[in-house]
């Protein structure tokens, strides 16, 4: 174990830390950022690749946000992957681990994306089994995140809130609610994002993600056009997502909130300012609740 900093976040606002910002983060050590989140798969090697994470951990608590367990695949999580993850958790002591309600592995192939699932009983059972296996192996509760998707399948008997609430109830896992994903989904699949929040059991939500998205125009039958939203994590959080976030935390109370930014990176300072904005909203909502 290498850590010297406390394990729990010092404030609710965090940012996703990517390679591009390691140096700036270590130089600035912003005091209002309570924690950093990293993808553990980026640290599955050794030596120099772990150097910066070790340095960051000396100053901040960490959350591990996995992208590789493929919890929705019709196969069990890779045992070797779980073991490396467990070793990293032991070494860096993140205060939590999360992954996604999606799949990426089919047989021996990994498609390197968070792919959509049909919301059927079979999917629900498979997700529960894989979450159970993961929690048993790691010896801890995990969080699972709602996806952003661009297709739905012909079959599907559950709504996404029903699926997520049932996962939490059956496995004891907690939820990571990505508010941008809800907004993106609501646009792409034509539902009310506020009704989605109302349908969620917010007691299970332990973290919220916020990010930017982009618009993509697609062509339909007879040259008709439709705009889809794509979860690109490459720009500022848009006002409509901030509004949905404010609505969510007004219902749930303040909750750990992370800004994700994975392409077309801003300066580290600009990234942190997005987190301060989320912290301000939580403060305003909290004041209102107290009053």
């Amino acid at each position: 174990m290498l850590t010297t900093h406390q394990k729990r976040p010092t404030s609710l606002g965090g940012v996703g830390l990517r390679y591009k910002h390691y140096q700036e983060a270590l130089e600035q050590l912003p005091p209002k950022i309570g924690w950093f989140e990293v993808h553990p798969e980026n640290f599955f090697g050794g030596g120099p690749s772990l150097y910066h994470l070790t340095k960051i951990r000396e100053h901040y608590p960490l959350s591990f946000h996995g992208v590789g367990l493929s919890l929705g695949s019709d196969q069990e999580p890779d045992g070797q992957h779980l073991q490396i993850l467990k070793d990293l958790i032991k070494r860096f002591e993140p205060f939590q681990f999360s992954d996604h309600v999606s799949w990426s592995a089919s047989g021996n192939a990994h498609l390197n994306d968070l792919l959509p699932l049909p919301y059927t009983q079979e999917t629900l059972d498979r997700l529960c089994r894989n979450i159970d296996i993961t929690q048993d192996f790691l010896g801890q509760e995990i969080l699972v995140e709602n996806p952003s998707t661009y297709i739905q399948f012909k079959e599907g008997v559950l709504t996404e809130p029903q699926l997520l609430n049932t996962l939490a109830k059956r496995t004891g896992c907690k939820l990571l609610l990505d508010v941008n994903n809800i907004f993106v989904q609501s646009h792409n699949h034509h539902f009310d994002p506020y009704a989605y929040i109302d349908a969620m059991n917010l007691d299970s939500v332990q973290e919220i993600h916020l990010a930017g998205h982009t618009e993509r125009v697609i062509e339909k039958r007879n040259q008709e056009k439709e705009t889809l939203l794509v979860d690109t994590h490459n720009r500022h959080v848009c006002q409509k997502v901030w509004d949905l976030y404010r609505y969510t935390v007004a219902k749930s109370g303040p909750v750990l909130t992370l800004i994700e930014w994975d392409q077309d990176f801003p300066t580290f300072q600009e990234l942190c300012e997005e987190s301060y904005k989320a912290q301000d909203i939580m403060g305003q909502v909290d004041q209102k609740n107290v009053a």
Partner: protein
Amino acid sequence: MLLKNLQHAFKEASTSQNAKDFLETYLPYENKEAQERFAIYKNNIMGSLSSVLADAFPACEKLVGEDFFRHKAYKFIEKNLPQKAALLHYGHNFVGYFEGVGRENNYGYWGEVAGFEWAQHACYYGADAQTLSLQDLATFDEEVFGSLIVMLAPAIQLLKTTYNIQDIIEVVKIAANDKEEGGIKEGFEINKTYDCYLFYPAESKSCVEKMSPVAFKALEALQKAPCSFEDLAAMFAEQEDEAVFASFITLLFDKKLLIRM
């Protein structure tokens, strides 16, 4: 609907030119809309994996230009999907593939540029190990020292080249910094030259050094199988200058290349 069948069909459709059966069987949209929506996933998968390759082989990308690199990367990915979720080691067989692309285009050195970049990459992400340092060397009794069994640490990489690869990579990087398109600046000469390289991890980076043939041969032996220092000394027996072996031993401990077996 069986989840396993759906996921297999999705995988096949995302890496082939023909996704028609998958789209008709599983998606509720009319054909054009289904294609366009599914294309977002296909582009994400192929785009992100080609970016992984471009990150591991930046000089190769600059050498041939981004468009050509992406085109060839897509062809590679279609036949070589990752087998692990962590992609740090994805691309080891891209070296051989890129060598073939170079041969097709009459550029024999392309494969060696890729090999050099992969060695750097593999060293940077190589497994940690408890290595022997100069301080350890000082603690060994002379009698015990000769019979110590050691091997190269797993992160250490060795590479032989037949062109002036390090110079080529430098020139390509300078051109990239100057925002020039792919290729090598006019006037720069590609030369045949036989070099031996050692790649080793330092605190926050991977380092590279050219090695003499005799030292390289000893390092290769240490990589293949455990050796004693007596075995190593025998490899330097023909060297008239004893200092050659002494400086090799210093290198092994100074750069922390060894693990004790």
